[in-house]
């Protein structure tokens, strides 16, 4: 039973988080920052595009560095 629960969570982790956990963490932080800025008078739409510009090359850099 414990093994099945472990296998389920391993599947869930693989399904949601995937190969690079930094992407999942980055997206959560990006959404939190978007929410925080949206509570002010400053426009918040630019946060996620800016996140993409930083996160994707960073993840690729980590992936290629190990090859």
């Amino acid at each position: 039973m414990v093994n099945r629960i472990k296998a389920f969570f391993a599947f869930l982790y693989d399904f949601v988080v995937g190969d690079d956990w930094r992407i999942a963490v980055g997206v959560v932080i990006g959404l939190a920052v978007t929410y925080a800025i949206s509570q002010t008078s400053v426009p918040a739409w630019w946060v996620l595009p800016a996140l993409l510009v930083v996160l994707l090359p960073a993840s690729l850099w980590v992936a290629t560095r190990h090859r």
Partner: protein
Amino acid sequence: MSAGAWSLFIAVFLACVVEAVEATTIILAAGTARDWRSALTGMSAALVVLVAIVAALGPAVSALPLRELRLVVGALLLIFGLQWLRKAILRASGRKALHDEENLYRSHLAEAQAAPARRLGSVPDWYAFTLSFKGTLLEGLEVVFIALTFGSNAGDIPLAGLAAGCAVVLVAIVGVAVRAPLARVPENTLKFVVGIMLTAFGMFWGGEGAGAHWPGSDAALLVLAPVIALFAIGLVAVLRRGKQATPAPARESVPATEAG
């Protein structure tokens, strides 16, 4: 059909074609190497489970408040999209082996042929049943997730369901007709496009769910997708240039249910 409805249909259709091709490869390997009856029974059992999941989750997803739904679904789509895009860029730049259905098919076939046969109840070959069941269920879950989340966010679950259904039926018909791995489907290119679409939709819905207001409202999607595509193509070019003269990796052999 409006431009928004077309973009919803195309995004769901392409994403589901990719998943359906992967499931078809596994079912074909199980049927060819082992036993067609067991493989098809496994596929049917998985489809029954998927229908039950849709029946349970469909109304629940539709009942969620739109803003919270967009936040959660946007976050998940953005994570999936970036992961798909990351892999697609690595493959396109030669940093990662290409996802090759023919090679995968051969790998599944060899594995299936080596496994011992075992009858269980009315299923003649338990190995073929479980291989086909797992492949259909796991890839099918992704189809269900994509159709439900895209459909509920766009306020048109029937259209998203139709797009997913068309993709699955089309791939199934082609799979039955050729009874061979669908190697001619440009899977890596499709994954690149789907990665861009998932990222664009995820960014748009996630941002709205978190309280952002996009300039131009829904029209922002028409800018986001091409800009993300250009950025991704630029990253491919940068990685290719930096690759120097190292030989390209061999085409990959991956587990049956690897996503992306």
